[in-house]
């Protein structure tokens, strides 16, 4: 493209320049190999981890995990934990409520003095 074509009046034909400047760039060949190796390693590691985890559990442990009677204790523990957390939140809310009430009264007193 000539200088005249790049300029329309006083305006640069920036779109043409950008098309020339920002050409797609071919990735280096080594990148494909590197990426494929990394992805293979990631999938392999994930599969091995799952398989190791399954192998570590004995047959009796797997049976125990499948038995719904053994689910009661964890469910109870979660329920108890939730109740305790709720109680703590309630106590905290009450404490803050009392503080706010004090603050409110104090500021009201201040305004009265003024």
């Amino acid at each position, binding site marked *: 493209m000539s200088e005249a074509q790049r300029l329309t009046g*006083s305006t640069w034909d920036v779109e043409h320049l*950008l098309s*020339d*400047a*920002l*050409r797609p*760039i071919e990735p280096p060949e080594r990148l*494909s190999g590197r990426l494929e190796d990394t992805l293979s390693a990631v999938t392999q590691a994930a599969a091995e981890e*799952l398989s190791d985890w399954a192998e570590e559990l004995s047959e009796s442990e797997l049976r125990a995990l499948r038995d719904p009677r053994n689910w009661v204790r964890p469910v109870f523990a979660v329920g108890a934990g939730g109740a305790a957390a709720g109680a703590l939140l309630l106590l905290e809310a009450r404490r803050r409520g009392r503080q706010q009430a004090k603050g409110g009264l104090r500021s009201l007193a201040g305004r009265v003095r003024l």
Partner: protein
Amino acid sequence: MSNEKNVEPASLDPEAKAELDRAFEDLYRAHLRDVYSYAYYRVGNPHDAEDLTEQAFLQAYRHFDRARRESDGRPLRPWLIRIAHNLASNYYRDRSRRPQTSLENADPIEARHGTEAIAEGREQLRQVMANLDHLPDDRRDALIMRFALGMDNREIARALGRTDGATKVLIHRAIKQLQEEMGDE
């Protein structure tokens, strides 16, 4: 960030995983150049561009199953570029760097020009790249997507998480700003 459960590819049954891996390989082959080009123009050097491309595809692989389900058949290129875009933003945040835009590998002007025209052309391209580097990040990124990757407004909008209208305005303003800055030189 969505709360929806993400299915790690390794947790799928073998047949589903094989199908997913094939689809990912297709995506990877189709868009490796796009991701690398975007990364290159963002970070400005081949070494970091390779790292960024690798990270982008690794992250894409982890979320590929969900992205495919949620895409409703729409092309996944904007999603992929969005991943690269977010990684590039973190790259600058972590290392407090700015891109070092370079024409070294772009080879923008080929044998169709004579030697003098090449020198003149290279100077103009150097100017446009230098001005591009000084644009606000969102404007520069939109222009890279438009011109280096050939993405249309809708694709760019999806990649940047904006509306189509806002993207059109963004690109228009970016080109206008570049024109003004080139005119001043």
